């Protein structure tokens, strides 16, 4: 029963994908007009427009572009033209740096807030005000104070990934069952040991959920940040293709961003699966 369910959903996935490709192809064909009758020299200067070609690429064209990126991901033709693998590595590096920094700050701070009602009351207003700020709103301030575009984008990742982790950690820590804490207290376990041996394992599923939300947001934000500051990374890659008005390039970049985001999410899903427990 379970297997047939899985097969059925796979078949449905394929059908949906095929339908999408067909609609796409039909749309592109409908946009392609007849060749315009014009002076040959003028036609030459006008390029594809003279042939009545659509500005929107077909699925085949995009597939070819994606394949070309896959077979040659690490070429380096100078500072403004690098392979997709190198660009993804730059973006991933920035996301990881900002994300880990955020984890280092957010998880201990979350413990503090979760364990102490005084701290919770004191820090709550700051968290509530800073949390809803769009991470990109920090960008001009970061550029002005840090004076380095690479570090500024890491800072933006840091500031956007800190809130879900902080709030989830605090929530998970505060939600640890009273009985377990009472048992620890009766056994006269020191507070640090309680945090490490009792609270951390109990709260880790919630903490990991926070981390999973954070990495998702971080991956969303890095593309926008890199489009703003340029230089390197997948966001810059999108901007560079956009600069050439190459829709094919933009669609292939969207594909790679999606695949990468899915991989990041899957890794954290596995991790949270590993720490899950049944009560």
């Amino acid at each position: 029963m379970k297997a047939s369910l899985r097969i059925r959903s796979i078949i449905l996935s394929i059908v949906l994908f095929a339908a999408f490709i067909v609609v796409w192809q039909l749309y592109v064909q409908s946009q392609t007009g007849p060749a315009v009758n014009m002076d040959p020299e003028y036609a030459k200067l006008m390029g594809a427009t003279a042939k009545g070609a659509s500005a929107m690429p077909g699925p085949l064209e995009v597939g070819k572009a994606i394949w070309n990126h896959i077979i040659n991901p690490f070429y380096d033709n100078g500072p403004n033209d690098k392979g997709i693998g190198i660009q993804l590595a730059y973006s991933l590096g920035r996301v990881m740096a900002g994300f880990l920094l955020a984890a280092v700050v957010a998880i201990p701070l979350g413990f503090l807030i979760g364990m102490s009602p005084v701290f919770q009351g004191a820090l709550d207003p700051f968290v509530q005000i800073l949390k809803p700020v769009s991470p990109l709103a920090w960008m001009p301030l970061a550029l002005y104070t840090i004076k380095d575009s690479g570090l500024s984008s890491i800072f933006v990742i840091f500031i956007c990934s800190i809130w879900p982790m902080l709030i989830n950690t605090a929530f998970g820590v505060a939600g640890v069952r009273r009985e377990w804490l009472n048992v620890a207290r009766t056994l006269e376990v020191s507070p640090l040991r309680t945090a490490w041996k009792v609270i951390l394992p109990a709260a880790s599923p919630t903490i990991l959920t926070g981390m999973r939300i954070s990495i998702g947001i971080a991956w969303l934000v890095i593309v926008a940040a890199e489009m703003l500051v340029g230089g390197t990374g997948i966001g810059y890659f999108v901007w560079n293709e956009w600069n050439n008005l190459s829709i094919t390039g933009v669609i292939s970049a969207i594909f790679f961003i999606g695949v990468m985001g899915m991989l990041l999410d899957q890794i954290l899903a596995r991790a949270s699966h590993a720490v899950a427990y049944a009560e």
Partner: protein
Amino acid sequence: MGALSDPFNPDQLLWEGCPCGLHASMREHQLASMGGSDPRFPDSRFYSIENNPPVKAAEESTYERTPDAVATSDAADELTWDDQDAVLARCVESAVMKGIFGTDMNRRNFLRAVGTSTALAAISQFIPLDKVKAAIVDAKGPLEKKKLNVGFVPITCATPIIMAHPMGFYKKYGLDVDIIKTAGWAVSRDKSLSGEYDAAHMLTPMPLAITVGAGSVAKPWTMPAVENINGQAITLHLKHKDKNDPKMWKGFKFAVPFEYSMHNFLLRYYVAEAGLDPDKDIQIRVLPPPEMVANLRADNVDGYLSPDPFNQRAVYDGVGFLHKLTKDIWPGHPCCAFAASKAFIDDNPNTFLALFKSILDATAFASDKANRKDISKAIAPKNYLNQPVTVLEQVLTGRYADGLGNVKNVPDRIDFDPFPYHSMAVWILTQMKRWGYVKGDIKYKDIAEQVYLATDAKAVMTEMKLGGPYGKPPESTYQKYTIMGKTFDPAKPEDYVNSFAIKRT
């Protein structure tokens, strides 16, 4: 024979004294080897020896050369004292060889024994001749910094800054420059202010605006050279085909690439001359150039005054037509700039000079219309402009499709004159005052002369003796301009501002 001879040719005598090094002159050496005649007999027939070729004729030479050596020694055949750089390079080679071998005989024997190419390879393994030469030829003083980051916005105005990379102009002056593509002028300004860029492609009004602190933190900035003159256009959506008179543009939405740009000032000037108030009758918004074509296609704007290739790109993509080239508004107007902070120049004078020279050299090369097709190919790849070669060629050669079915031929559609006239700065300041970007009294002349380095440009250009139509600096750094029939006198900027009917002051 002598200082200009190729030291890698075993058949050449190079240095004073005799080949074996034991005698003070060739004559003494010959006499000694001939049986010890006394050199004190000046009437000796051996006196004539020096006039005869001391070695076998060049035709019989077994002298072999590597491709590299061919390049240097072909130059050597025509080497004259006028070509100072080549002479200097040759002297370096010669001095290095002298240091290694001591005497001509040792050098020639060694070269004959192992062959020139092997010798060259063996010697360059220990002494990087190329680098020594580059260091001495290019810098005259040591370069404070060789690795530089120069920012550019991907438009054809930046042609000299960009092409200097693939075509080797930076390398020629001993610099290792990375040119970094930048998303727009606000980012370029911020990265320049933060010191990430050592120098950058800017718009001619930007160094003035940064210096006076308009729309930016105030920091002394300089503009050593203008990148390009002309080269912009007003592009309109194809649906406005019939609205050829700006008087019919009431309610139009226009885009310009930056507030402190010639694009903004020229568009304002143009519509104001037609009686429209640019702040009330039309809307002007700032858009990064690559987004202009997409916005025009989506009908978000009716037109724009933007840098190429995005005017030609709108034609190429079949969404717009070229209403007017800016050269028909103000022939020879400045547009983009090569700019650096005053601090960079003060801290790295030699590096700056080398960079300045490579830009001037590249600009002179670009000003020659015969080179434009090669340049289009050099700057089209993804690493640089990332545009179709056809589009760039139409911009740079001036033979282009106008979007209405005509092929036009305007060779000076874009041109490259590096000279930063002070009068250009004064004109820009008058427009900043006119439209309210700066308030109060402006010391036009002082700011212009502080920011636009016309005096330095004059000195360097005179020294460099560049070719091309703009290779020689002009006599005066101030000029009068006629813009749409109205004369601008740089000596009376305030009167000029007050003479306009539509203004914000």
